[in-house]
């Protein structure tokens, strides 16, 4: 397996995939900077909670785009060069699928760590109130990864099965928008949509007073059933994607 992963790394040489992740992180940084720029010292007391509320919302659109681009970039080299028919006479198809997933996950981990670094960095620079909520930040990293990897494996499955990469790219964008708008859907419905899980697993809620126009953030309980469901989705999508990839004829 290590050889297969090593070769995935070589295949991405010169493909500038990290650039896509970096650009999306820059967008997230600018967005966070803009969102917090009009907050006064009083608001910054809830700075950590503000970020832990804002970032998952942003992730609904940003992470699916990263997942779609990474999966597509890792798969289109195989379609373009018609390499699956040679690779599958050398190593098992399931190993190709797993190696691509592992290498793609590194990019998703990089993106998740990148946004965590943005949050912590800005928190320290802007002197957010109270102690750093390390536990909530660690949970945030974990939830973001679980949801992102589930979306990524969906994207990878489509990208590896369909040669025309417009299909997975469009699915990724549409999924991101559905995820963003699903914030307004009832919770039961949200849990049926893969891209809405950044919201489902949010650890912070918000009260908005219409008369004073003041916002107040509060900690919410972790939605364990939501976490369980997304893990089930992950296992199902990985399994189905792998079966379809292994069974298809080149």
């Amino acid at each position, binding site marked *: 397996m290590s050889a297969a992963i090593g070769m995935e790394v070589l295949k991405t040489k010169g493909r500038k995939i990290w650039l896509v992740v970096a650009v999306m992180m820059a967008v997230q940084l600018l967005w966070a900077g803009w969102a917090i720029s009009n907050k006064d010292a009083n608001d910054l007391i809830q700075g950590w909670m503000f970020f832990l509320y804002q970032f998952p919302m942003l992730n609904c659109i940003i992470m699916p785009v990263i997942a779609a681009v990474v999966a597509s970039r890792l798969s289109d*080299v195989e379609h*373009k060069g018609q390499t*699956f*028919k040679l*690779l599958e*006479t050398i*190593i*098992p198809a399931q190993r190709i699928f797993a190696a691509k997933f592992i290498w793609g996950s590194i990019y998703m981990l990089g993106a998740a760590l990148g946004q965590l670094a943005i949050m912590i960095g800005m928190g320290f620079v802007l002197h957010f109130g109270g102690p750093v909520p390390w536990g909530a930040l660690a949970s945030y990293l974990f939830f973001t990864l679980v949801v992102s990897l589930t979306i990524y494996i969906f994207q990878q499955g489509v990208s590896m099965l369909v040669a025309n990469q417009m299909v997975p790219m469009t699915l990724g964008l549409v999924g991101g928008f559905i995820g963003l708008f699903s914030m307004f859907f009832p919770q039961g419905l949200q849990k049926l949509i893969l891209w809405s899980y950044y919201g489902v697993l949010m650890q912070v809620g918000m009260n908005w007073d219409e008369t004073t126009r003041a916002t107040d953030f509060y900690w919410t309980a972790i939605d364990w059933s939501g976490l369980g469901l997304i893990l089930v989705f992950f296992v199902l999508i990985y399994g189905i994607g792998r079966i379809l990839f292994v069974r298809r*004829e*080149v």
Partner: protein
Amino acid sequence: MSNIIETEGLSKQYGNIYRVKDVDLKVPEGAIYGFLGPNGAGKSTTLKMILGLAKPTEGEIAVFGKRVNSKNRLENLKNVGSLIESPSYYGHLTGEENLRIFQTLRGVPKQNITEVLKIVRLENQQSKKVSQYSLGMKQRLGLASALLGYPKLLILDEPTNGLDPAGISEMRELIQSLPQKFGMTVVVSSHLLSEIDQLATRVGIIREGELVYQDSLTKLHQYSKQHLAVRTMNNEVTKAFLSQNGVAWEAEDDYLIIPQMKDTMMAEISKALGQNNIGLVRIEERKKSLEDIFLELTGTAVSL
């Protein structure tokens, strides 16, 4: 001589249509087996089934004497190199990097890269991105990938597709040298009769998914030898006369086709027929070209 590949009743059905039907392929060890057939006849599908890239609907495949199944497929393929339809490559990487990927995955020594690059005469182009290669160079790189593990069996599907005459000739020379140099058995498919004629020692001809001929190329050439076509006033009596005198014949329309023979022998027959009051109407010399035979077997105009 044992068979390196042996298929039995190999079939592949897509929907209600059989793309490959009851193919019993027998590839002897050390041969260059030409798998000939018009486009869409089922050559690639057959080769893909042997490589496990397509699942047979019916039939069995044995490679190196072992029956191939999903469990031992990759173990069996360790000694098989392949180039199916078109070369597989990563255009954004150099030739050497491309080979490094397949060499690492195959687990063969790194020095094989340098050696196979030399064999396909790409050693001076190894640092160039493959996207900048010509089609001929890409085909040679594909062949280099297939040769990386010095396999006992090499399966090449239309390796000269899209090449110019010089490229075809170069590729042919390369393939021809492999059995002698490395003791490989080569299966090479093509829709070009002339190519197989110059390359193969044994030939299999496939038509609409069915194997219509399989034997040595020498035997196929024998069919194309000159024959005599004889027409008499009474062919039935002539048939008996020829048989009595040990001359093989074959009826074709109003003619009896007999083997080429010396003039004195033909004069004897002519005289004997006259003595038996059988009027000799016509004697023609006929020659079936290899193309005619191919056309008869495949029902498709040959590509030259």
